[in-house]
């Protein structure tokens, strides 16, 4: 009798396991060359039906949504992850999507030889932790004070308009928006290339949604890495696809893609090591953000990553 019970229960579990629908995973994304694989996966129809993309326009969209719990996961900058942690919303990084190495760009209308020349300029930037950091770094290098420049809050979606109507002299921007300005003969000032392995963009999940959405997260990452593999083997094909989606020329997309490092699954595992540049950057950003007053207290950085989702 006992044997029968065990057998029946196991059978039921197996059957229920087969039919179990994965918990829906809502993922916040926004236009950024480093997140392109997620958009392309959607276009290819590769995303599992348990995954729903919640598309924003500017970085604060995803950030607010993950804070409020409207989305379970989001593609965010490492700064956003730290910021969320100080606001009591614990996020765990499940993958590094890209490392910006030139795709975050500062552009100016007039050519600028040295950073000191930005004195007195109107700088248009998004109200994001990353843009603030960029500005801080720029001021630091130029030896200027915040008061030496005029900082205007211009969301990336409105930068082109502000540029055309001459409201700004300099913009802190990123791809795909940067390409649109470059095509208007904007001048290069500086870029994330100057801050090697500092600007990480990650897929972060709310800790309270981690457990019950494990299967969906795993499926999303599997698809992301499969799409990256497609990027690798079908480079020209993907250039055309991204350019059509963004409305930028293939050559601009090529340059933009050259401005991000898209780590494979194997490379990701390296970042999840406690001695990795990801952890070092997180520590540095935490200190910097605290010193500059972006955060009132430092975030706790323990259990920042969970490599379980990178398993095969």
């Amino acid at each position, binding site marked *: 009798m006992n*044997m*029968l019970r065990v*057998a*029946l229960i*196991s*059978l039921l579990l*197996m059957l229920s396991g087969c039919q179990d629908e994965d918990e829906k995973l809502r993922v916040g994304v926004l236009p950024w060359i480093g997140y392109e694989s997620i958009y392309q996966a959607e*276009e290819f129809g590769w995303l599992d039906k348990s995954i729903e993309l919640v598309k924003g326009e500017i970085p604060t969209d995803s950030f607010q949504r993950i804070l409020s719990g409207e989305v379970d996961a989001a593609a965010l900058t490492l700064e956003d992850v730290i910021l969320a942690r100080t606001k009591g919303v614990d996020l765990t990084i499940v993958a590094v999507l890209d490392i910006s190495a030139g795709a975050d760009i500062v552009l100016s209308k007039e050519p600028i030889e040295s950073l000191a020349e930005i004195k007195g300029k109107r700088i248009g930037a998004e109200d994001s932790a990353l843009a603030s950091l960029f500005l801080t770094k720029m001021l630091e290098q130029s030896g200027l004070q915040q008061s030496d420049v005029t900082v205007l809050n211009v969301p990336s979606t409105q930068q082109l308009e502000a540029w055309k109507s001459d409201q700004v002299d300099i913009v802190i921007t990123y791809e795909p928006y940067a390409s649109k300005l470059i095509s208007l003969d904007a001048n290069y000032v500086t870029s994330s290339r100057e801050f090697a392995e500092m600007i990480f963009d990650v897929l972060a999940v709310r800790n309270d949604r981690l457990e019950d959405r494990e299967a969906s997260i795993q499926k999303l990452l599997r698809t992301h890495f499969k799409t990256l593999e497609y990027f*690798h*083997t*079908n*480079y*020209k*094909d993907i250039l*055309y*696809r991204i*350019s*059509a*989606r963004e409305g930028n*020329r*293939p050559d601009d997309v090529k340059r933009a893609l050259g401005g991000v490092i898209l780590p494979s699954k194997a490379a990701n595992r390296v970042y999840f090591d406690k001695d990795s540049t990801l952890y070092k950057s997180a520590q540095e950003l935490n200190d910097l953000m605290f010193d500059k007053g972006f955060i009132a207290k430092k975030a706790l950085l323990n259990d920042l990553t969970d490599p379980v989702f990178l398993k095969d």
Partner: protein
Amino acid sequence: MHLLILLITVVLGSNTLLWAKRSLNFGVFLYAPESHVQQQYQPLVDYLNVHLKEIEIKLVPLDRSAFDEALQHNKLDIISTNPAHFEVIHNNNLFIRPIATTKKLQNGISTDSFGGVIFTRADNKTLMTLEDLKSSKIASMDIKSLGAYQSQVYEFFKKGIDIKKNLSVMDNHNDIMRSVIEGKHDAGFIRTGVLESEIEQGRLKAEDIKVINSQNMSYYPYYLSTQLYPEWPIAILPHIEDDIANELTIALLGFTPKLDKNSSLYGFTLPQNYASVQHMIKALGLPPYDTYEEVTYKQIYQQYRTEIFVFLSFVVMLVIIVFVIIKLNIKIRTSEERFKLAMEGTQDALFDWNMKDDTMFHSKQFELMLGYDGTELPETIDAWKDLLHPDDMEDAYASVDAYLKAKGKKNYVSVFRMRSKDGSWRLIEGRGKALFDANGVPERFIGFNTDITEKSEHEKQLLVQTKHAQMGEMIAMIAHQWRQPLSAIAATTSSLQVKQLLDKMDAKSLTKGLEEIVNLTQHLSKTIDDFRDFFKEEKQKTDVKLDELVKESIKIMNPVFMDKGIKLYTEYLCDKEISTYKNELKQVLLNILKNAQDVIVEREIEDPMVTVTTYMKDGKYCISIEDNAGGIPETVINKIFEPYYTTKSSLNGTGLGLYMSKIIINEHCKGNIEARNINDGALFIISMNKSVD
């Protein structure tokens, strides 16, 4: 002379010059008529021959088989062919290296990628998606064409559609186009760029065609229905020295053709990654990946480990379940058969009363018991009610109600009369158990009905038999008790007679003697009374103190015990009244005491003694009788309450004593009697409730 020397020098010099220019064969796959291929590639070859100092390139256009054969014989040095063909070649010779990828120009835009187009007539309203083409007739090039076969088949393959059976192979792109426009085929597969060039040359109108599965690549200059693949590679054979390879590559990358309407070859770029081509032809199982690869069990195991494990677990689980079910089935069948046999073999009739819908199942025996054939009575509770004796109706219902009210805490036993088919009344005993739901409401009532008419008659007879036997024993006891007073009477009478003969009789002696005789006769009379009560038919229970009841029994037995030298110890600890059938209980006590006496005498026990104790235990009224006669043999201890079982010689026992005792205690006094061995004798314990009700 000078002239001669000069001539020789020129000839030799030119000879030397001819020897110095090494000739390389540039094999180009003949994808179109030779004149067309020549037209496309000759400007390139001319350009190279101008720019390469030491090398003379010779254009060798070859069809597929000639191309492969030339490679087999190592007659080619530089090659250019479509990427799928190149994948086959590359697999044959891993050291063949692509050094550049071709660029083409169309509509003023250059591209180094190509793919396939799936098109139909613009007026075809039914064909919109790949799925719509599942049953369409499609014109294509042969299986070796990447742009007009493989790339399209792969798009269908990704959607899980096998389109190969729908394809008709045409000789060239022109035939495919014409066939579709003329409506011979529903759709056509064609390489990117072909439609545009036909439109440009006025042979086709853009509004006449419609592209299916159009890709979202607005910057790509051509119609496109598939993913993109790198254009044709230019590759060098491994025997070409690095210096020449470098020189050739530099020249190729520097090639900018004159823009010519008839030429689409626009130049070269760094070699692209051809992995996408490899993926596609691998997925489709095309050459060189079309050969059957022997798959070992190990490979299968490694690839499908999880699936195999899950499947095997499932099978094992299934086998276990089937096995268990079979086993249970056998068990159920066996027990069903056993139950059926038991049902048929026993005189008991099963009833199963479903109290929710008031139906009642009864076994065949129920009908047989009452003289029916087993199919006559309906399966309702009324069948039972109708046959119940009217006088017993009230009691029968009362006992069911009492049982149900007690929620099964008491046993259900009820005796009632039922009318058999021939009209006679049968005495039926019902025993059963009810099943209660979670709220304590009875759902089913299941039990047995037993015909105890004969049993009851038999018990009555036994009772009589026992009484007769006991009467005999009583008479013996009376005789025993009378012997001494009678002797005393006789002695007194004799003494009076002697005194009268000797004339010594005085009034005093006479009075004294007569008083003695009167006392003795009164004693005798009292003895009779004691015994007479004992045999009275007892219809009414009486309230009596347990101690008193036991004392009365002891009083009868005591003289006999004293006579046999048996010491009788008594301990009365229950000075409380019980309501019972007094005489029957006394008979039981006497029976047990008599048994003890018989065994003591038979076994010639030294210092024989019997202890009788009354006491209360767990609310029960108890009497224990203990002797030191050596106990009941273990082999028979379980049988002593059975009828006609006796350990005594036939002279002394009827074998009914303990059986009747048990019937009296169990059924009349609603108590319990048990026997066990202790120390050096037997112990009988009778326990009863305060009342027999």
